[in-house]
């Protein structure tokens, strides 16, 4: 099975208030170069001498990968291409934050083989951008987008977050109008999640965050789905929309619960039924590789039950849902034998729909997906 490759760049100019990713503002304890050296070392560990598989996709995420120099970005990819076998038409994505990419850097990226850009826009409202800790303006989102287009990228994703503190429904509508105007091939639309350890988490505790109510949030989401669908974006995963043929290859590996290799601090790999995560702290990650030690921090071997639960939950995130044949192929057992009662109950509640080949979330189920997922957890 051909895996995807994920490369993590855990640095940002500054940390956004909602962000709970493994990212750090630059500091003096180590340099970016040391980190990049460690990445090369980890790539070497992963090299498959027989080249028995080839990579289906490569994804540079962060943090802000585009904080690296254009040269570093292109060298990394070239090195990966040298050491791994790669599908001819592999999707190669890099996340970019507006304000961190100049024309020259973008050109180098394009020329070295990146063929998809994921742009962190979040909102087109300048005061909201400021209030959530973004360092760029709405004008910079449009400018970066247009630049990418001009240079030749024909597969661009734009990240948008809704249910931001103080955001109204009209403000979200405006964000999506502006988004669609740019005509990105792919849109990731995330409801704001307040995670522990973030500035927003503390603010909320102190009563400083004025978040939209659950009702408003649901209305925002419902409107967004209808609007984007009317603009020919397929709602193919809970938070993702794509034009025809432009679904994210890399992310679909995750939602299909297929193997992937993660490289970099805090990156996760899933290989041979074993999921493990690297050391999160970049310095610890660097030191571990300098000593020639695998930088693994945590891992678990998944039991068959857990694999079944995960696969079903991940499939259900997508429009395609659970394909009964695929389930049979993967687990050698009939889906309904394992989850028949759960499906029945969820259908009665109107959260699941089923036909001969598949079952998937209903419209209502998309809003209450956690309730459905929970049913498919085997304790």
């Amino acid at each position, binding site marked *: 099975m051909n895996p995807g490759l*994920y490369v993590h760049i855990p640095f940002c100019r500054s940390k956004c208030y909602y962000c709970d990713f493994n990212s750090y503002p630059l500091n003096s304890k180590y340099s970016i170069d040391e980190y990049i050296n460690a990445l090369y070392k980890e790539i070497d560990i992963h090299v498959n001498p027989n080249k028995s598989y080839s990579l289906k996709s490569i994804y540079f995420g962060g943090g802000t990968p585009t904080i690296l120099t254009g040269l570093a970005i292109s060298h990394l990819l070239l090195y990966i291409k040298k050491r791994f076998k790669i599908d001819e038409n592999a999707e190669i994505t890099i996340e970019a934050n507006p304000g961190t990419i100049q024309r020259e850097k973008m050109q180098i990226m394009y020329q070295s083989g990146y063929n998809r850009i994921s742009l962190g826009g979040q909102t087109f409202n300048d005061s909201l951008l400021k209030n959530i800790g973004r360092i760029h303006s709405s004008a910079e989102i449009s400018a970066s987008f247009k630049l990418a287009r001009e240079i030749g990228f024909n597969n661009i994703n734009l990240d948008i977050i809704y249910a931001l503190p103080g955001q109204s429904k009209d403000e979200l509508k405006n964000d999506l109008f502006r988004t669609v105007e740019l005509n990105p091939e792919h849109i990731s639309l*995330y*409801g*704001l*999640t307040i995670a522990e350890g973030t500035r927003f988490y503390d603010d909320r505790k102190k009563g400083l965050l004025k978040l939209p109510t*659950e*009702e408003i*949030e*649901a209305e925002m*989401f419902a409107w967004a789905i209808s609007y984007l669908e009317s603009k020919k974006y397929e709602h193919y995963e*809970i*938070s993702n929309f794509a034009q025809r043929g432009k679904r994210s290859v890399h*992310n679909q590996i*995750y*939602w299909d*619960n297929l193997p*992937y290799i*993660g490289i970099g601090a*805090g*990156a*996760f*790999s*899933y290989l041979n039924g074993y*999921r493990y*995560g690297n050391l999160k702290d970049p310095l610890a990650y660097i030191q571990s590789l300098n000593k020639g030690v695998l930088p693994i921090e945590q891992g*678990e071997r998944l039991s068959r039950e*857990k694999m079944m*639960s*995960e696969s079903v*939950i*991940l499939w259900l*995130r997508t429009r395609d849902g659970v394909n009964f044949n695929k389930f049979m192929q993967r687990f050698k057992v009939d889906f309904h034998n394992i989850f028949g009662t759960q499906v029945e109950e969820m259908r009665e*509640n109107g959260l699941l729909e089923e036909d001969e080949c598949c079952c998937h979330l209903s419209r209502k189920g*998309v*809003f*209450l*997906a*956690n*309730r459905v*997922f*929970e049913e498919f*957890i085997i*304790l």
Partner: protein
Amino acid sequence: MNNNENIRNFSIIAHIDHGKSTIADRLLEYTGTISAREKKDQILDDMELEREKGITIKSKAVRLEYQAKNKQKYILNLIDTPGHVDFSYEVSRSLTACEGALLIVDGSQGVQAQTLANVYLAIRNKLRIIPVINKIDLITSNPEEVAKEILAISDLEIKKEEIILASAKENIGTMDILEAIVKKVPPPSGKIDSPLKALIFDSVYNSYKGTIVYVRIVEGSIHVNSSIITMSNQKEYEVNEVGIFHPKMKAMNKLSAGEVGYIIAGFKDVKDVSIGDTITNLKRPAQKSLPGYKKVTPLVFCSIYPVDNNEYGNLKMALEKLKLNDSSLFTEPESSQALGFGFRCGFLGLLHLEIIQERLEREYDINLIATTPSVMYRVTTIKGEILNISNPASFPTKMEISKIEEPFVNLTIITPSKYIGGIMELIQERRGQFKNMEYLDEKRAKLDYQIPLSEIILDFYDRLKSKSSGYASLDYEMCGYMISDLLKVEIMVNKNVVDALSFVIHSDKAYARSRKIVEKLKEVIPRQLYEVPIQATIESRIIARETIKALKKDVIAKCYGGDITRKRKLLEKQKAGKKRMKKLGKVEIPQEAFLGILKLE
């Protein structure tokens, strides 16, 4: 060493945290009963919960051997007593097995209500009391003042010089205490050659040895292999083992008058052995049994249900096992429309209830729902029937009732005088009737009230502590039933009466309390897929209502590589949490909905 003259039996009276267990430890060390190396802190509190809560729950006995200054060897039997108001019956049992008691008072805290109650109990039992002021090493300690308080205790005939100053922590005064026990506590009076009379003061169940009975031999002696009978029910047994606590069980050939120890005699069940009963010899029986004990009556009741109905069997078994060691726990099978099969249980007090509940959850791993504690109401119907009702769910309707009475207690509170105002306010809120106030010294006062038991079983103790910065202490005893204007309030969730949430309350308080309860339930019951009304009703009339809105959106926004494990674990945790909830109809109600009602203030 069967000479009575050289035996001393004593117990320790002390308020929680006044240092009973540490003093006991020092005595054990000093007499070499245990070496410092063997000791864990607080040897006598060996139940995990006892150590955690810093309280003694079960009585224990231990034998010390002490060579006194007069060069004679003495056997000192220490019978440990619980210090919490809930367990005063255990205290009284221990005291009757002794001739003396150490009265330990914290030098910085002074005499507390509970201590006072136990001192009076000891005086009534004609025990010789040896006062000890502990923790004199503390800067806040004021032995002079505390001594005055001790001397002011009526009927306690002691001189100031007799008060021992000690610090268990610094090992000060340990020998003085031992010497005082030898000199002042009278030796037991029983004769070794009289017919056997052994007082059962406790029993425990051990899965290897069966039921072990703790006894004080009052007259005569008991030997291994002799035949004995328990006098109340005339059951015969063969003695398999007798022994002492040293501090572990140590088998002996016999126990004689004055001694304290244990008997194992094929008692099948703890129920066969009633505490306070007298054991005598089958062939040479005593004529009259010892006075024994007053029967213990539970004061606080609640229903206990397994969250998962399949665990009923386990719950039943666990309760039976707990009862083996706890004769004061009362249980009766019960069924509830809402909660299925469970037990109505009676306890000595709220602490006793909490301890049982925690032991069931921890030691037996059963998820429980316990309903709001209640007292035993006495309802007279219009037909003239008298019903004793401990479960609000089975309260008759207003039409059928001619009068309702509820239990009242005499409440004693000792507090620094500056907190009196706040405490009086609290008691007023709780329908307390002022009886008397008395100053113990310039700074401390004793308050006497009459108050409905139902008003003090929930959060009263915590509130009292917070009103007095932790300084006030309380004691209470039942004083009888009196007429009250009481109502039954029912709670409906999603239009269904949840019988387990029903409660009985004074009519003046019904509205405010119902309001708080529906608000609390709205907070703790998670949103469902549809709207859920919560209502409080009196005789079908709705007096409070809240609505839990339907769940609109609950979805994890992102799920990529590393998230998958994390999100799955999150869902697993949520699901496990729901398993701990009770499904009523289609609504999942968390345990805290049942418990939370206790903590409304």
